[in-house]
C-alpha cells in the first residue's frame, strides 16, 4: 500500500512538472494504446474462437469424407465376403467340388486390397485358401481371435485389429500385417451343412490409402482405432509400436462423435471423432492447436499493429496537443513576462475558451495598469498635498508677521501678550507636526485652530471675534490634521480683513450620524455661489493671488484619505458671510489607529 502511495506521489510530482502538451500527448497516447490493446485482445480472442470453429467444421467435413471412403472400402470387403458366402460357399458341395477356383477369381479381381481368402471348418481345419495354399506347421486357426469372434457371433461380420497373420506358410512375405474380416458360414459337405469360418485378410494398403493423405490443418493427421481404442492405422504407427511416440488413442475411444479439445503431452489440440458405421471403429482427426491457435502469429501481428498504432497516435497526439497547447503556452509566457515586470502583449488565439481566457487576462492586465496608474497618481497628489500643507504651516509671511508682532509687543511693554503669542505659536507648530501623524484627535485640531486664531486676533487687533467649540458626541473623535486652519486663514484674509469690528468666525464640530462635521462660519463679505463653487474645483472664476488654494488642498486631502463622499461644502452669499462645512468619517480612537496602519 505504501509502495502504491509512493508511486502515486511520484506520478503526481511528475505530473506537476509536465507541460500541458506532454500531459495531453501522454494521456491521449496511453488512452489510445489501452483502447487498441483491448481491441487487439478482443480481436485475437474472437479470431481464435472463429478459427477453432472453422477448423472443427473443416475436420468434421474431412472426417466425413474419410469415413465415406473407409465405409465404402469396408463395404466392398463385406460384399466380397458376401459374394464368397452366397455365390461360392452356398452353391458348392465340398463332396463334389472345391471353392478354390472361385475364390481365386475373386482374389484376382481384388488383389490390390486382399491378402488372402480362406475358408475353415468348425475345428479350424483349412478347407480352401487363395493365394496361400497351406498352413504353417503347428498353426491352429481355431485359437485365433478372428476365428473365435466369428464362431461366437454368427450373425455378424467381424473385423479384427491389425495383426501379423501367422497361420499361413508364405515364403515371399512371411509376416504380413493384416486386418481380418471373419464370418460364420455354413459349409455343405455331401448334402450336409456344417459350421465354418470365412476369413478375408485385408491388406493394410486399403486402409492406409483412405487415411494416409488426409491432413487437418498444419501438422494435423488422421488415425483409426477400434472401439476399444486399439490402433488400426496411424501415420506414425511404427514409431508408436517402437515406443518412440505415444498417442492418446485410449482417451479418444471414449469421445463421442464431434470435436473435442484436449491437452496431450503438453500440447493443446483439437480432436475430431467420427465413428465408422458397422465396425464401431473410430476415425480420429487431430489438429494441433498451433494450426489454428493464434498464440504466436497473431500476437506478433497484433504487436506490430499496436506498435504502429501507438507510433501513429503518438505522432498525431504530439501535433494536436502542440496545436491545442501552444496558445496556452504563449499566454503563460506573457503572464510570466508580466510577472517580471516586462511589457508583454497578450495574444488572443486558440479555441473559444482560450480566446475568452486571453481576453479576460488582457482586460485584467489593462485594469490593473489603470488602477496602478491611479494609485500612483493619488499617492503623488497626497504627497504633494501634505507637502503643501506643511509648507503652508511655515509660511514665512505668517511667521515674520507673528514674530514682528511679538517684537513690537515686547518693545511696547506688553509682556503678557507677547508671551501669549509666542506660546500660541509654539503650540501651533507642535500640533502641526504631531509626531508625523496624519490623524489626530479632534481636540488637538480645534486647539491648533484656537492658537492660530489667538495669533491672528492679536495681529488684527481683535477686529473679529472667534468661537471654537465641539459639541457633545464629537469630543473623542479623530480627524485629519490641519484641515481647519487653512479655512480660518481664508476666512480672515478674504472675509474679515476689510470688515468692521463686529466680525465673527466660529468653528463648530459635531457628530452627524457616522460623520464628523466641522462648520467654519464667518459673517464677512461673503461671495457669489458660483465663486464659492469654483473655489473647490479651481476652475471658472479668476482667483486672486493665493485665494482658495488652501481650501482646495483641504478638500482634496479629505477626499484622497476618505473617498469622494467626504470633503468640503461651501455655502456663501455676498454680504451674508460664508459657511465652509467639513465632512469626515467619525473615527474613534481604534478606527483612527487602524487608519494609520493602513496608510503605512
Amino acid at each position: 500500500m505504501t509502495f502504491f502511495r509512493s508511486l502515486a506521489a511520484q506520478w503526481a510530482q511528475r505530473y506537476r512538472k509536465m507541460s500541458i502538451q506532454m500531459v495531453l500527448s501522454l494521456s491521449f497516447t496511453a488512452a489510445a494504446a489501452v483502447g487498441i490493446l483491448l481491441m487487439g485482445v478482443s480481436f485475437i480472442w474472437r479470431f481464435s474462437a472463429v478459427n477453432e470453429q472453422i477448423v472443427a467444421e473443416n475436420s468434421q467435413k474431412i472426417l466425413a469424407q474419410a469415413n465415406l471412403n473407409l465405409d465404402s472400402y469396408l463395404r466392398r470387403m463385406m460384399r466380397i465376403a458376401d459374394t464368397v458366402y452366397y455365390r461360392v460357399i452356398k452353391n458348392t458341395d465340398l463332396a463334389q467340388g472345391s471353392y478354390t477356383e472361385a475364390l481365386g477369381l475373386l482374389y484376382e479381381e481384388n488383389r490390390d486390397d486382399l491378402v488372402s481368402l480362406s475358408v475353415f471348418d468348425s475345428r479350424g481345419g483349412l478347407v480352401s485358401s487363395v493365394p496361400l495354399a497351406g498352413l504353417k506347421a503347428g498353426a491352429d486357426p481355431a485359437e485365433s481371435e478372428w476365428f473365435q469372434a466369428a464362431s461366437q457371433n454368427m450373425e455378424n461380420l467381424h473385423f479384427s485389429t491389425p495383426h501379423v497373420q501367422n497361420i499361413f506358410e508364405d515364403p515371399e512375405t512371411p509376416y504380413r500385417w493384416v486386418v481380418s474380416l471373419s464370418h460364420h458360414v455354413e459349409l455343405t459337405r455331401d448334402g450336409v451343412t456344417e459350421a465354418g469360418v470365412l476369413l478375408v485378410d485385408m491388406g493394410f494398403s486399403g486402409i492406409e490409402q483412405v487415411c494416409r493423405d488426409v491432413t487437418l490443418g498444419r501438422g494435423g493427421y488422421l488415425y483409426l482405432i477400434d472401439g476399444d481404442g486399439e490402433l488400426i492405422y496411424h501415420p506414425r504407427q511404427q514409431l508408436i509400436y517402437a515406443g518412440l511416440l505415444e498417442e492418446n488413442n485410449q482417451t479418444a475411444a471414449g469421445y463421442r462423435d464431434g470435436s473435442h479439445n484436449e491437452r496431450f503431452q503438453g500440447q493443446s489440440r483439437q480432436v475430431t471423432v467420427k465413428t465408422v458405421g458397422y465396425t464401431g471403429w473410430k476415425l480420429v482427426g487431430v489438429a494441433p492447436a498451433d494450426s489454428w491457435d493464434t498464440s504466436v502469429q497473431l500476437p506478433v501481428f497484433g504487436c506490430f499493429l499496436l506498435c504502429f498504432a501507438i507510433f501513429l497516435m503518438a505522432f498525431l497526439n504530439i501535433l494536436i496537443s502542440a496545436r491545442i497547447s501552444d496558445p496556452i503556452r504563449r499566454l503563460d509566457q506573457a503572464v510570466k513576462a508580466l510577472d517580471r515586470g516586462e511589457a508583454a502583449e497578450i495574444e488572443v488565439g486558440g479555441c473559444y475558451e482560450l480566446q475568452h481566457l486571453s481576453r479576460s487576462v488582457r482586460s485584467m492586465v489593462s485594469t490593473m495598469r489603470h488602477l496602478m496608474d491611479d494609485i500612483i497618481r493619488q499617492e503623488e497628489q497626497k504627497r504633494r498635498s501634505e507637502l503643501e500643507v506643511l509648507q503652508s504651516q511655515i509660511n514665512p509671511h505668517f511667521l515674520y508677521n507673528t514674530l514682528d508682532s511679538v517684537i513690537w509687543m515686547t518693545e511696547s511693554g506688553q509682556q503678557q501678550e507677547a508671551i501669549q503669542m509666542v506660546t500660541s505659536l509654539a503650540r501651533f507648530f507642535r500640533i502641526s507636526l504631531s509626531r508625523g501623524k496624519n490623524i489626530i484627535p479632534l481636540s488637538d485640531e480645534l486647539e491648533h485652530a484656537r492658537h492660530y486664531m489667538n495669533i491672528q486676533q492679536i495681529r488684527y487687533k481683535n477686529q473679529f471675534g472667534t468661537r471654537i467649540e465641539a459639541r457633545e458626541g464629537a469630543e473623542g473623535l479623530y480627524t485629519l490634521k490641519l484641515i481647519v486652519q487653512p479655512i480660518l486663514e481664508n476666512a480672515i484674509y478674504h472675509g474679515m480683513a476689510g470688515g468692521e469690528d463686529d466680525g465673527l468666525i466660529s468653528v463648530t464640530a459635531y457628530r452627524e450620524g457616522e460623520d464628523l462635521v466641522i462648520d467654519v462660519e464667518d459673517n464677512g463679505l461673503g461671495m457669489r455661489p458660483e465663486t464659492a463653487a469654483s473655489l473647490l474645483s479651481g476652475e471658472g472664476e479668476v482667483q486672486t493671488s493665493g485665494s482658495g488654494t488652501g481650501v482646495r488642498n483641504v478638500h482634496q486631502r479629505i477626499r484622497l484619505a476618505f473617498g469622494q463622499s467626504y470633503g468640503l461644502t461651501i455655502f456663501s452669499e455676498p454680504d451674508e458671510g460664508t459657511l465652509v462645512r467639513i465632512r469626515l468619517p467619525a473615527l474613534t480612537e481604534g478606527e483612527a489607529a487602524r487608519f494609520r496602519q493602513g496608510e503605512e
Partner: protein
Amino acid sequence: MKKTGLPAIAVLSLLGLLAVLTLLAPQLLREREDGRLLALSVLLRDTDSSGWNAARQGMEQAADELGAELRWLTLTVPNDTREQEELLRREAEGGADAVIAVPADPEALRSALDRLAAPCPVVTLECAMEGSAGTAAPDNGEVGRRLAEALLEDWSGGDVLLLDNSGDCPETAPRLEAALEALTAAGVPAVRGTALPEDAPPAWVMTFEDGATRRAAAGKEGAEGFALYGVGASTAVTAQLERGAIAAVAAWSDYAAGYLAVRQAVQALRERSRPLDPLPFSIVRGEDIYAPENQKLLFPVTS
C-alpha cells in the same frame, strides 16, 4: 514543441523501428525455419543394406520429419575398416552434414574422424564409438547378461558354448563377456568357441549377433539337440524362432534405432542434442512371438 521535441522524436523513432522490426520478424523467422535439407550419409559395414530394412524405414521416417536426406553407402568387402574410413573421409569432405555409421571398427573410425580437417557429427548404430554424437543401440553388456539369464531359466545341466563367429563385429565382445560373467556367476560351465563342433555339439549355445544367430540356427538343422539363445530380430531369425530352432532372442526395434540415429544426428547439427538412452530390448521366446507387444517389436508394419 521546443521543449518536448527531442524526446518526442526519440520516442517516435523507437516506435517506428519497433514497427519495422515487428513487421520483418515473422518473415525472418520463416526464412530460418525453411532452411535447406540436411545431407546425412549412412555408412554400413555390410556389402548390402538388405539386413537394415527396418532401420532404414525408421531413418527415412525421421529424415522426412526433420528435413534431411539420406545417402546409403555399403562396403565392397564386409567389415573392411579401411574402406569405411575412406568412405567417412569422402563423405565428410563431400559435404555430408552428418554421418550415421555402423562401425566395422569403432577405434579405427574414431581415428579417421580425428584426422578429418572438418569433422562432422557421427552417430553410431550397434556399438558405441568414443567421440561420437551418440549411439542408437542397446546396452550391449545388459543384452548379454539378460540373454544368459534367459538361458539359466531353462538350463538343466551341460556346457554352454558362447559362439563368437561374427567376424569383427565390435558389439559382440561386450555381450559375450557379460553373458560369460553371468553364467560363471551362476556356476554354469561356459566355453567360448568360434564354430559349432560338428561331432558333439553342446546342449546350450549362445550367439551375440544377428548373423551368428542365423548361421547357428541353420547349423542346428543338421545337428539336433542343442538349445540356441541368440541376438537378432531379422526376418530369418524370427522365422527360426517361430520354428523352434531358436529358444529365445534378445530383440530390439531396428526401426527405433534408425529413427533415433537420424534424429540424434539432426539434433547434433542443430546443437540441441542430448545423450541417447540405451535402446530398450526384450527377450522373446519362440512361444511368445505373436504376443501383441512382440508382434510390434519383431514385425515392422508394412502395407
